[in-house]
């Protein structure tokens, strides 16, 4: 009933009521170039790349914000349209640096691609832009304002999706640029390092602070033992960097490739995800049984932690004291593992492969070291790992799968689920059920916390207890939940928050050009792993059990407390 018939380039296209020309065309497989368009957000109409001709309309119209109507005749490729788009690219390039060869986004730049597609082969206009210094002050993200085309996507994702609003347009007209409040460095701003701005940036104006060279140097240092861990969400995305479609799991191939580039040990962060569940699950049970502060909030996502420290310091007592799986692994590598190997922790370089830019910040937190030796020395994003593989001429696709190393290589699929929003909750419920009742859940899959919805809630009967749990992904959604709790909502006992929409599979360090379809495919890949796995609960992980028996003692015990737990503090930044 709500179909709208339009004609595009002479072809009949069935659009839906509420469609814009752009959404209707994209669904019908008719490409229209865009620069500022963002899925699921109101169009801003800033870049005008998406202009089309509509019969009867005066001039060209922006297809991203022009609603379809019955009988509308659209031309997406008339000479006028193409000329207008070309001019827009030429104008954007008028003040854009043209040293593409030295740009981090060379070959992966939307502006570069559009220039090529529109046949722009020379500088037609020459404009002088105000030079703005690079900002490399942040621990995770660097900004190069000279490469910015002011599309505004970073500003929008930061404010509208993440509810952080660390950056905005500053000044006006030809002097306009994107910056933080008072134009200070990112390091002292309210930026939470999530990297969602990097993912949406069409050019090289925003990128991660890279550690590829440092890692390469460590790998070639004969005096160093180089150990790596890889996060649950990396194996299901790295394949995309090597030409596969989203949703292919490269776990074993990636492990093999990591060994080929020279890592001495390859550990699986999903192992410490299982360990996190033992600690965090026990903490939850303790809080519930002993009247501790509830709802308990998960602490795996470092962007979220900084967010709470800045915006919701009153919720710091609610945060689980558990370190994130990355930091638990780091702490174990520089203690238990170093001891076992008979090595000075200083001679071990601990590298973590993460889907995340905020993990770079987390690894540098002053709490995360033992005797001034950092638990994690370097963090590489999925993108950086792919670059390292290419740099070393290693193609994971061509390798036979291999398993991760002992003692931190075994994992349950519950630990693997950490990569998707709701995964920590699902893993925690599975183990909390066992910790409280002594028996296993009859149905391990907890459908209510799966999927891409921004806020998910579940009520699970555990013995006489009804556990009310909520899951939020994206900090905009986390805000909604926390505001409800602040306003007096009492039923929730446990809240999982992932900083990025959909969880780590959509993290700020993941392959560029990700859309929600790709996120869904990655999520399904994780669910598939869980379906096919026999070890599906963290508390049955044999190596975790052994680690407790040989080293840690018991969950929440003294050694755990010292190595695996931490505290967070209110952070005074300009919000």
């Amino acid at each position, binding site marked *: 009933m709500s179909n709208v018939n339009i004609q595009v380039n002479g072809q009949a296209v069935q659009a839906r009521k509420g469609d814009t020309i752009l959404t209707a065309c994209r669904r019908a497989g008719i490409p229209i170039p865009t620069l500022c368009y963002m899925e699921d957000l109101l169009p801003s109409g800033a870049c005008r790349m998406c202009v089309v001709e509509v019969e009867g309309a005066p001039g060209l119209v922006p297809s991203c914000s022009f609603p379809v109507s019955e009988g509308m005749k659209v031309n997406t490729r008339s000479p006028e349209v193409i000329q207008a788009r070309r001019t827009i690219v030429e104008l954007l390039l008028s003040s854009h640096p043209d040293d593409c060869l030295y740009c981090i986004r060379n070959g992966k730049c939307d502006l570069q691609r559009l220039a090529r597609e529109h046949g722009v082969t020379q500088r037609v206009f020459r404009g002088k832009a105000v030079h703005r210094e690079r900002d490399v002050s942040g621990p995770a993200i660097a900004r190069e304002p000279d490469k910015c085309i002011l599309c505004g996507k970073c500003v929008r994702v930061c*404010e509208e999706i993440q509810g952080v*609003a660390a950056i905005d347009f500053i000044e006006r007209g030809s002097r306009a640029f994107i910056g933080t*409040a*008072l*134009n200070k460095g990112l390091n002292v701003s309210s930026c939470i390092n999530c990297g969602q701005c990097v993912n949406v940036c069409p050019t090289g104006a925003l990128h991660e602070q890279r550690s590829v060279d440092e890692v390469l140097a460590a790998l070639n240092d004969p005096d160093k033992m180089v150990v790596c861990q890889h996060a649950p969400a990396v194996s299901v995305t790295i394949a995309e960097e090597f030409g596969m479609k989203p949703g292919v799991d490269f776990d074993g191939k990636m492990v093999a490739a990591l060994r080929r580039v020279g890592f001495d040990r390859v550990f699986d962060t999903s192992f410490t995800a299982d360990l996190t569940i033992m600690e965090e699950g026990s903490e939850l049970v303790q809080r519930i049984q002993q009247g501790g502060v509830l709802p308990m909030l998960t602490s795996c996502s470092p962007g979220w932690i900084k967010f709470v420290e800045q915006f919701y310091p009153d919720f710091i007592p609610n945060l689980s004291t558990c370190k994130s799986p990355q930091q638990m692994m780091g702490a174990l590598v520089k203690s238990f593992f170093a001891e076992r190997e008979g090595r000075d922790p200083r001679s071990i370089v601990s590298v973590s492969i993460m889907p995340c830019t905020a993990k770079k910040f987390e690894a540098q937190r002053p709490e995360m070291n033992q005797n001034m030796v950092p638990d994690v020395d370097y963090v590489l994003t999925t993108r950086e790992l792919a670059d390292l593989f290419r740099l070393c001429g290693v193609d994971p696709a061509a390798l036979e799968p291999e398993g991760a190393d002992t003692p931190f290589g075994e994992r349950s699929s519950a630990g693997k689920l950490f990569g998707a929003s709701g995964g920590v909750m699902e893993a925690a419920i599975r183990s909390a059920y066992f910790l409280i009742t002594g028996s296993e859940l009859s149905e391990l899959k907890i459908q209510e916390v799966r999927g891409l919805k921004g806020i998910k809630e579940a009520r699970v009967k555990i013995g006489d207890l009804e556990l009310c749990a909520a899951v939020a992904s994206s900090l905009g959604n986390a805000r909604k939940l926390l505001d409800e709790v602040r306003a007096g909502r009492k039923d929730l006992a446990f809240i999982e928050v992932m900083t990025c929409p959909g969880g780590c599979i959509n993290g700020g360090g993941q392959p560029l050009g990700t859309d929600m379809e790709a996120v869904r495919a990655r999520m399904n890949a994780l669910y598939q792993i869980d379906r096919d796995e026999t070890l599906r609960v963290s508390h049955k992980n044999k190596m975790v059990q052994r680690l407790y028996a040989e080293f840690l003692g018991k969950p929440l015990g003294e050694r755990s407390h010292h190595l695996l737990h931490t505290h967070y503090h209110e952070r005074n930044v*300009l*919000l």
Partner: protein
Amino acid sequence: MKGIDAILQGHPGAGRDALIPILQEVQEDQGYISPQAIAEIGRRLKLPASKIYGVATFYNMFRFSPRGKFHIMVCRGTACHVKGSAKTLETLIKALHIEPGQTTRDGLFSLEVVACLGACALSPTITVNGTFYPKVTQAKIAKVLDECRRAAQEKQPKEMAS
């Protein structure tokens, strides 16, 4: 000075639409928009500091450092432009080592560019603390700045005594 608190109290229940009037009042009261003012306005209006800074920097009228003892306005209107006000501005920037909107380190001078002072017959023109200086040249500007510096020095002992 009324203070930021008092100004915000004059806008009970204010939302983002009140931002510009509040910024204007704060500037009128304090002479500039301080980081503290941005933080306080943000808390009251529930707006991010980046947004307030973004809005405030969009408009030329807002400044982010206190005014100097001598506030110099340079007219860049059409008539003054024709009579060479670009040179006037350049002279001042070079002499004071500050950009428009800034204040010298010693707090003596601040510089502001305005679109028209309404004194086109006197172009190119500047004002210092509201006093008009007609048909300025490089030499005249140097003289005016010297006068200001001398005036400040003479005043200083008195100020210390009081």
